[in-house]
C-alpha cells in the first residue's frame, strides 16, 4: 500500500523551455538538420526581402506628374498616383465622382456596423444592406432618378466596376445557391433534376465562355430592339456561374447536418421552409463559412475576366493605362498595384470569415 501525504509545490519549468530562447530552441533549432534549414531559408528570405523593400519603399518615387519625376531607380508609384482616379472611377464623369464616393462611404459604414459587436438592431441593418442599399446604390451609380444625370454602364470601370461585379455576384449567388442546393436535395423529381441539370451545366463551362456567350451569343438570340445592357449580361452570367458553385458548397453543408435535426424539426410540426430556415440552414451555413468565403474570394478575382468582353475592371483599366506611350515600361508597378488591391479585399474577407467562425462557435459537436 502506498500513501503519499507530501504535497509537492508547483515549480517553474526549466528556463530553457520557456520564453524566446525556449521558443527558438523548440521551433527553429531543435536538431542539426533543422538548424541548417533555418539558416538557409532565413538567408533566402532576407536576401530577397531587402531588395524588395528597397524597391517598394526606400528608392521609390511617389509624387510627381510624369515619368520624369521617377529618378530614384526604385518603383515608380507616380504612375499609380497620377492615374489613381481613373483606376478607381473608370470613365465615370469627374463631376459625378461624389456619387461613387457616397456609395463607398455608405458601404464601408454598413459593413463596419455589421461587423461591430454592439450594433443594435443588426437584423434590420442587414436587411437594409441587402435589400434597400442596392437600390440606392443603383440609382446613385446609374442615375436617371432624383435629378441625377444618367451615366451609361460603358462609362463604369476600374475598382468601382470590380466592386459592383463582386458585390452583386456575392449577394445574388448566395440565395440562388441555397435554392439550388435545396432543389438538388428535394424529394420532388422535377425540381431535383432541373436543379441538378442547372448546376452541372454551369459548373461544367469555363467562366470565360459563359461571358463570351453572354456578350456575343445572347444578343443573337434576342431580337435587336430588346438589347440588354452588356454589364447586366455579364452580371447575370457571373451570378449563374457562381450560384452553381455555391450550391455545391451548400449542399455539402446540408449533408453534414445529422438526420436527427431534420426529424426533430419535423416532429415539432415545423414545415419544410421553416425547418430549413430556422434549423438546418443556420447550422449548415455556419459549417460552410470557409467554403462559402472561398467561393466569394474566387468570385472576386474572377471578375477580372470581364476584360475579355470589353468591360474595364481594375485589371483591364490598369492594363490599358500601361499601353499609354507616356508610361511605357512600368507594367511591374501596375500589376503589383492591382495584385495588392485584390489581395487587400480577399484577405479582409478571409479574416472576417475566421472571426465569424469563432463568434458562431457555440461549443457543441455536430449532433
Amino acid at each position, binding site marked *: 500500500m502506498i500513501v503519499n501525504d507530501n504535497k509537492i509545490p508547483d515549480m517553474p519549468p526549466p528556463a530553457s523551455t520557456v520564453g524566446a530562447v525556449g521558443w527558438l530552441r523548440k521551433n527553429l533549432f531543435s536538431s542539426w538538420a533543422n538548424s541548417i534549414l533555418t539558416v538557409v531559408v532565413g538567408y533566402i528570405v532576407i536576401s530577397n526581402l531587402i531588395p524588395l523593400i528597397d524597391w517598394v519603399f526606400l528608392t521609390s518615387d511617389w509624387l510627381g506628374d510624369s515619368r520624369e519625376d521617377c529618378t530614384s531607380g526604385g518603383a515608380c508609384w507616380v504612375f499609380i498616383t497620377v492615374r489613381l482616379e481613373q483606376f478607381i472611377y473608370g470613365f465615370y464623369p469627374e463631376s459625378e465622382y461624389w456619387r461613387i464616393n457616397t456609395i463607398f462611404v455608405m458601404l464601408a459604414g454598413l459593413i463596419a456596423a455589421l461587423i461591430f459587436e454592439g450594433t443594435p438592431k443588426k437584423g434590420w441593418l442587414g436587411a437594409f444592406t441587402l435589400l434597400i442599399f442596392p437600390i440606392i446604390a443603383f440609382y446613385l451609380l446609374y442615375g436617371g432618378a432624383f435629378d441625377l444625370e444618367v451615366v451609361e454602364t460603358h462609362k463604369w470601370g476600374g475598382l468601382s466596376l470590380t466592386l459592383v461585379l463582386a458585390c452583386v455576384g456575392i449577394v445574388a449567388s448566395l440565395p440562388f445557391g441555397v435554392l439550388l442546393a435545396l432543389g438538388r436535395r428535394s424529394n420532388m423529381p422535377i425540381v431535383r433534376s432541373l436543379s441538378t441539370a442547372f448546376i452541372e451545366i454551369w459548373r461544367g463551362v469555363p467562366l470565360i465562355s459563359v461571358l463570351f456567350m453572354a456578350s456575343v451569343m445572347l444578343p443573337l438570340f434576342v431580337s435587336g430592339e430588346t438589347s440588354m445592357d452588356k454589364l447586366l449580361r455579364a452580371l447575370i452570367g457571373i451570378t449563374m456561374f457562381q450560384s452553381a458553385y455555391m450550391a455545391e458548397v451548400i449542399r455539402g453543408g446540408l449533408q453534414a447536418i*445529422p438526420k*436527427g*435535426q431534420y*426529424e*426533430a*424539426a*419535423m*416532429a*415539432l*410540426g*415545423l*414545415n419544410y421552409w*421553416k425547418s430549413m430556415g*430556422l*434549423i438546418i440552414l*443556420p*447550422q449548415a451555413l*455556419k459549417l460552410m463559412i470557409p467554403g462559402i468565403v472561398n467561393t466569394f474570394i474566387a468570385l472576386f478575382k474572377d471578375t477580372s475576366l470581364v476584360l475579355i468582353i470589353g468591360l474595364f475592371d481594375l485589371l483591364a483599366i490598369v492594363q490599358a493605362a500601361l499601353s499609354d506611350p507616356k508610361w511605357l515600361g512600368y507594367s511591374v508597378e501596375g500589376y503589383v498595384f492591382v495584385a495588392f488591391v485584390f489581395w487587400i479585399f480577399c484577405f479582409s474577407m478571409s479574416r472576417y470569415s475566421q472571426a465569424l467562425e469563432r463568434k*458562431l462557435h*457555440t*461549443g*457543441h*459537436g*455536430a*449532433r
Partner: protein
Amino acid sequence: MSTQNNNVSSEIMIQLKGVNKWYGEFHVLKDIDLSVSKGERIVVCGPSGSGKSTMIRCLNRLEEHQQGQILVGKTELTNDIKNIETIRREVGMVFQHFNLFPHLTVLENCCLAPIWVRKVPRKDAEATAMKYLERVKIPDQAYKYPGQLSGGQQQRVAIARSLCMNPEVMLFDEPTSALDPEMIKEVLDVMIELAHEGMTMICVTHEMGFAKTVANRVIFMDGGQIIEENNPHEFFDNPQSERTQLFLSQILAH
C-alpha cells in the same frame, strides 16, 4: 393495478389498423393493430430490428406506412401535408439522441416551435418554456447551449421542448439508450412524473423497471409483429409466448 389505470378514459387517442410497411423488399411492420386510449401509458419492447422504433415513427409520419390505417385523434395520417402537420403539432417526440438544436440556447430550443408553429407571442412562449424547464428541473440552464449540458440534461430539455407544444401524446424512442448509467434515473424520473400527470405516452424502451412502475400495457414486438400484449404484471411474471420468454430471460438475466 388500480393506480395504473387512473386517468385512462375510453376516448381513443391513437389507432392502428392492419398497418404494413416495407423498406424496399424488407417487410418491417406486419399487420400492426393497436389502439391507445387517452391517458394510457404503453411500453413497447423487443429485440433490435423488431420494428418497434419504426412503428412509433410511423405515428407522426417520420416514416410512411404503405398499407393500413393510422388515426391520431380524429385525423387520419395520409399524404395530405396539412393532416401530417396537424398531427405533428399534437404529438410530441423524444429521440434516442436528443436531437436538440445545437445553434440555439436551451430556452430558444423550447420556444421555437410554439412561436413559429403555434404563433404564440414570444413572451408567453418563454414563460411556458421556463415552466416546463422547471418541471424537468433545469431552469438554471436555460441560457446555455445544448453542447454545454450533460446527456441527461439534454434529454430532459428535449422532453421540455416537446411539452412546450402542449401535445396530446408523447412518443419516446429509446430515450435512455444513449445515456450513461448515472443519468438514466434523472430522465426516467421526469418521465414517471409525466405519466402520473396523465399524459398519454408510448415508450420504446428497455427500462423494465419503468415499464413495471408506470405502464398500463406492455407490448412485445419481434420480426415486425406484435407478439404479446399484456399488463405489466402478467407480462413479466407470466409471459405467454416463447419468444417473449426468451427475450425477457435475456434482458433480465444480468
